[in-house]
């Protein structure tokens, strides 16, 4: 089977810092891949390189047949990527539902001309409500994101990504800031979404949930890939344990 996403020899440097050093990996269609590693390992940078926020100095990224390297951020999103960011940034001037509806309207906002001739947004609002339902904050649809606590915003961020109906969903620490119950619920949602056919890359430090729902793990450390394989086997790898787990290793795993 053809991989849905393949990153080949990606290197990202910031001045003197090499955040990602020659990393290659692939994601198969329908897979839920966990991308883990210590703080500062380069996970977020990898994600941003895939989406095009950072331009790799070397290497290439393709989605299916399509090379993404020369595309702008928005073109990559339209090609089928969606990103839920580590630092949440909702639009504060519009309510929660319209935040998601804006993402759902991708077809109508493709070009300025199209955007100009379309006014109706009932359908998009409906899609938005469904996405909010999925992440469990539909009851807050009419609220302003301005005053919502972090936990809600995290889910809003994910709802927006879902509303884009992407081929590949990139989630950067979606569970952070949620308590264990909420985290496992949202993790379950992620697993469900995946089961319905969505390919997902998940960055997460909540190892318990990662181990529970991911089908495969890629581990980065210091910008390099140090492991790639089924969760249990990867976690048993000595290098991974040394880099990633503290004294609590067994409890977490």
């Amino acid at each position: 089977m053809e991989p849905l996403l393949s990153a080949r020899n990606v290197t990202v440097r910031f001045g003197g810092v090499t955040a990602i050093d020659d990393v290659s990996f692939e994601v198969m269609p329908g897979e839920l891949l966990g991308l883990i590693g210590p703080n500062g390992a380069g996970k977020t940078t990898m994600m941003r390189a895939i989406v095009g926020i950072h331009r790799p100095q070397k290497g290439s990224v393709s989605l299916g047949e399509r090379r993404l390297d020369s595309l702008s951020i928005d073109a990559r999103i339209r090609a089928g990527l969606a990103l839920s960011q580590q630092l949440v940034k909702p639009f504060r001037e519009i309510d929660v539902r319209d935040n998601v509806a804006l993402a759902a309207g991708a077809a109508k906002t493709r070009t300025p001309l199209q955007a100009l001739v379309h006014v109706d947004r009932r359908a998009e609002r409906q899609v938005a409500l469904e996405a909010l339902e999925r992440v469990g904050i539909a009851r807050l649809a009419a609220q302003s994101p301005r005053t919502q606590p972090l936990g809600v915003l995290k889910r809003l961020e994910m709802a927006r990504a879902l509303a884009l109906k992407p081929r590949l969903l990139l989630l950067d620490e979606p569970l952070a800031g949620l308590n264990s119950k909420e985290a496992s619920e949202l993790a379950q949602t992620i697993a469900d979404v995946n089961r319905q056919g969505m390919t997902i890359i998940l960055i997460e430090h909540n190892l318990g949930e990662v181990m529970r729902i991911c089908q495969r793990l890629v581990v980065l450390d210091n910008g390099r890939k140090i492991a790639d394989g089924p969760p249990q086997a990867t976690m048993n790898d000595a290098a991974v344990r040394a880099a990633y787990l503290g004294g609590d290793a067994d409890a977490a795993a």
Partner: protein
Amino acid sequence: MEYEISLATAVGISVLFALSLNLITGFCGQISLGHAAFFGIGAYTCALLAKAGVPFFATLPAAMALPALFGLVVGLASLRVRADFLAITTMGIGFLFVGVVRQQDALGGEMGISAIPDSGLSKLAFMLLTVALCVLTALLSQYIRRSWMGQVFNAIAEDEDTTRVMGIDVPRFKLAAFAIGTALAGLAGALYASNLKFISPDSFGFVESMTVLSMVVIGGIGSVPGVTVAAIVLALLPSMFTFVGEYKLLVYGGLLFLMMRFSPDGVTGALRRLMARRRA
């Protein structure tokens, strides 16, 4: 009555000009301190074509197309600069426009262009045309606001990066805002030139850019009725204040300051607060 007609024409041109900037700054959040340059390009296009014998109505499309073209170029340039540099870059565009026109004899240089042929309309008809164009522009603005384009503009105004991550081609939308806004500014400029029959570079300088920005800000960023009202008031202000004679600019400057100091969200904000108090 005659005087009122002239005044209404002048005010109408200001309103049109202010609404054009409102599209760029109010809707799309792109601050522009050099908008008078596009007003000027429209005015010069109209004036030169009219002098070459082109009838008034035929000059209008050109007086919109050319500024829009320049607007696109400026928009492209401004895409490159950091957000907080945009204000100064656009201000530079304004100075550049005046600086270049001043030195070009073909454009009348420092002396400007005088004896611009009449539009052929009566004073009243010209006024009605101006007002009609204002109303059309206001309606267009309101429509854009409600359309998906308005949604996207709002999003860009608030957070460009996030907008991009939602798959929206931010540069293209910004360019669209610049193109529409500058085309309308050019239209206002054409009306201005053919109304006054005399233009010179000084009429399109920094002060004019600031005046029109004040109209937008005092009206309440993005609010079409607010901006319209503010443009009317600010355009009338100088003639209302002739009685203060040499204190005119003092009063004008003072009012700008006081307005921002005590009602930073403009007339719309002040009204909203007033309503809220009355309801309470």
